[in-house]
């Protein structure tokens, strides 16, 4: 049984200068393992959307990435406003992004649906006023 490789990343809310660096690091780790390009792309999109959600809405978050020969798992726990209606948030086009976020090219309401589309398993839990937790699993084989 192979020992999974795990790495955690701290994400700070509103830190747009470093936004995306965790996803970039995750991609580069998967590429160095020789993981199939199509899988890497799905992980990239899901990880990036999750990371950007945290940057845009949360105060702080920890993203934990773990890989075994069989699966890639990403979990993200944030301290932030939480999501009042998860079903609504999962709908394409629904967004609470501010004008400023939209100016930066975000807030099309595709973030969570995009994560779900690229994930094999996806769990989202949220508590208003406390924060949101995401669990994303993508099968390698």
């Amino acid at each position, binding site marked *: 049984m*192979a020992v999974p490789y795990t790495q955690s990343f701290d994400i700070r809310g509103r830190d747009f200068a470093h936004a995306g660096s965790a996803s970039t690091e995750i*991609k580069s780790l998967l590429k160095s*393992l*020789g993981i199939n*390009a199509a899988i890497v792309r799905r992980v990239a999109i899901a990880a*990036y959307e999750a990371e950007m959600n945290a940057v845009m809405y949360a105060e702080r978050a920890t993203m934990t990435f773990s890989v075994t020969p069989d699966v890639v798992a990403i979990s993200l726990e944030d301290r932030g406003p939480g999501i009042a209606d998860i079903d609504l948030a999962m709908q394409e086009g629904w967004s609470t992004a501010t004008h400023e976020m939209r100016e930066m090219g975000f807030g099309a309401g595709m973030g969570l649906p995009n994560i779900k589309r690229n994930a094999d398993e996806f769990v989202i839990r949220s508590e208003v006023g406390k924060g949101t937790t995401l669990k994303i699993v993508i099968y390698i084989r």
Partner: protein
Amino acid sequence: MACMHVCPTQAIRVRRGAALVLHDRCIDCGECVRVCPNTAIHPRTSSFSDFSGFRHTIAIPSPVFYAQFGKDVTPSAVLQGLKKIGFDDACDVAGASESVSIAIQEYLDANDSPRPLISPFCPAIVRLIQIRYPNLLNHLIPIESPMAIAAREAKRQAMQRLGLKESEIGVIYITPCPAKMLAVKDPPRRRHGFVNGTISIAEIYPNVLRAISESGGAGGEGEIRGLGLGWPVLGGQLACLKAQDCLAIGGVSDAVRVFEEIENGKLRDIQYIEVHSCPTACVGGSLTVENSYIARGRVLHMVQKYGSTPSRDRAEIRDLYQKNFFALHGKIPPIPLQPLDEDVSRGLQKLHQKRELYERLPGIDCGACGAPNCSVFAEDVVRGEATAEDCVFIAMRHFENLSATLLDKVRAHSEKVRHTGGPTS
């Protein structure tokens, strides 16, 4: 060690005082050629005599070549100069650039393949995508380069006019960079045989300059025209397009940043991206002679003077496009990097080992080990290409431990000697 630090793909190591290029990671961008203080790294371009086997030789200079001379020297005078130094003929490439631009516009209008589409004309950028972004290969627009189109046409016309066989005609590209040179010469990179060889601008420049000044710079006006003349500068391709929402990017590090974004699913509303490995695009190629900013000024001057009249009728180009005249020859395959291990489980172990080693390293990226930074060094060690003691800090600690052990032994021995009353008792 300047080369090792400047390499955008970490493809250089210093071993026994000399630079070693890891060819599977090298994208031929030529940044190392630019910074080497000892001119130790130089690409092997061909020389004139290599083409003596051809009955008819045709020089096709990159339009960058036009911008190496004073602003009174016209593009046609440059072509005349090439003929004077011994080529049987010299043909313009800028006209092909303009035609290719029209083909790009046609492709953008007719295809809804994944956006943004990426220009495939900088071979270093194409290689970067092949090695590091195989996911983006289907974003490369499948259109042949102006160099290839110009070469193919020059050959075809010479065959008709002179009744020669294709193999008797040698087309030689005058190149601004090593990437174009290797794309012509090196078999795994080579996709077509339209161009038979390359000579660098730096090498041929003095001879052509002499030939031009001997003839008083005369060479006719106006034969070479069109917006294709602007292709060597950043944004030159975009200036030929009607499409909005396009970007022009120069430099590998900026290209990497944008490719990461595309891979993450961003920039889908961008239609086309012109990408160059050189920060100032082709005028900044490492085998040129003129300062790239001066050359840029000259290119813009030429565009102003000759750009407004198209080199060829648009409808005619569209018709050729429909007949696949511009279609890319061959597929561009991925060139995957060697993974840490063929077996993913063992690869995971190596990732753990890499992290453990990395935590023992100073993290100052000094390069004394011969790798560009501590992270790359840690990876080299787990791949078995270096040993941990190649790091001076680790070696020093090792030595300290050794000498401490030795000192302890000496102390213990002298204690023993003192207690037993000396070695002579």
